[in-house]
């Protein structure tokens, strides 16, 4: 059964609007996003094409573009939207508590 496991990732103000931050936790790496409409999102941190850290890429609107081969994902849904990526990105629930961004990394 999947159990929620909320982890404190960063302060809400640590991420600029329309930007991304890398967050490493327990041997895993995540990307945490702040969208232009001031919502927070979290995805796996590595591109599904060649294991490159997405947090070094460019965020434009709701799209994160991989810094190596420019594959694109919609970070709000994880959908792969531009070649060469064809595998979607896993997403994680987020919430903001007292100015901190929490992400539910889940446990099986």
């Amino acid at each position, binding site marked *: 059964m999947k159990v929620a496991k909320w982890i404190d990732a960063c302060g809400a103000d640590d991420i600029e609007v329309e930007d991304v931050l890398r967050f490493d936790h327990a041997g895993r790496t995540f990307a945490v996003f702040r969208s232009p409409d001031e919502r927070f999102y979290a995805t796996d941190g590595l591109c599904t094409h060649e294991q490159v850290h997405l947090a070094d890429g*460019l965020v434009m609107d709701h799209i994160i573009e991989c810094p190596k081969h420019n594959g694109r994902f919609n970070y709000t849904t994880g959908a792969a939207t531009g070649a060469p990526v064809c595998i979607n990105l896993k997403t994680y629930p987020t919430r903001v508590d007292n100015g901190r961004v929490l992400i539910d990394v889940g446990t099986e």
Partner: protein
Amino acid sequence: MIDGGIVIVGAGEAGTRAAISLRQRSWTGPITLIGLEDLPPYERPPLSKQALSGAADPVPKAVATAGALAADNITYLPGMTVAGIDRIGHTVTLLPTQQDIRYERLLLATGASARQLTTECYSGVDIHYLRSYADALKLRAKLRQGAQLLIVGGGFIGLEIAASARMVGANVTVVEVTPRILGRGVPQNLATLIRQHHVQQGVHILEGTGVTRFEAAGNRTRAHLSNGDSVDCDVIVAGVGAVPNVALAESAELLTENGIRVDALLRTDDPDIFAAGDCCSFPHVLCGGRRIRLEAWRSAQAQGQHAAASLLGATAEYCVVPSFWSDQYERTLLICGFVTEPHSIIVERNLTDDAHLQFHLAGDGRLLGASAFGRNEVLARDIRIAELLIERGVSPGADRLADPAVKLKSLLRAD
């Protein structure tokens, strides 16, 4: 006769991307993708890097797996060449099967081949070239600790192979017959930085130097150089450029001009035949309509996608900002736009971390290009933003570009 629908000759990055893109654009007719090699379409960038230096034997990385192509109902014909095009009859003839395939429209994505060393002194010498997965396997088998490599040509391929060879402990000498490495398309100051990095890694780089003759020297081959030195080598690799594969187009009497000549839609002088990728030259609006030919993965991808639209009747001109990278050791050379235009001004942005980033401005202040050398994760985002600034014709101002306190992304919003 087989109805091939839209027929694509060449299953590299451009051809395969075009095929996939045609389906995404809702073309429901047949798509036939004809590949020279027996493998499913694969990515070439790793061939000079991980495929040579990685610990594990390399596996080709598919652009699209056989399953993905089948799921898109793309007929993939591997191991085939096209013997000729009948433009009146709208057919191509395949070899070795002698089969005729009818096309509604045709895309030539025939790529480029490694330029061969043809001067007399190279005849009878075992020379490696690197273009295909099979080439990479052959070269990889020779790269080991202590092996002596001679690389002829100080361009991207030569230097990437040099870095990979050093990473496995081989000794490397690079000879470049022109006065400097990376003489084509890379600003001089960046080439100097890259040269320094290679020298620090133990590569011997000899510029303005060629091979005058080879002779047998026990198990090795002795290369005599024009500077009077000689190198006893186990492996000789040539990276002296690529030549566009135009023989098929020429046999069909299509116009060529440093590649298959296409217009800004990527259409040849036959309205039903298009070309994309390394094999074609096209006019680029961002350099005043000058005809250019690109040999870069991202251009191949973007042109394949653009050609798909044009094949289906779209009339947009191809105006993607050229962009490419070259991984050498843990660093990357990144270039976008036009960085060797005459009379352009170079503006450096003051970064730390051994990273060098500079912008190339036209006399009127418009951003023409950007170039960088350092860790990809430090530089890639800024280069990508520069691409967007170039695409939008922005004149960001030299002072703002130079100041690391000014976020480049903010310049996108300023205009």
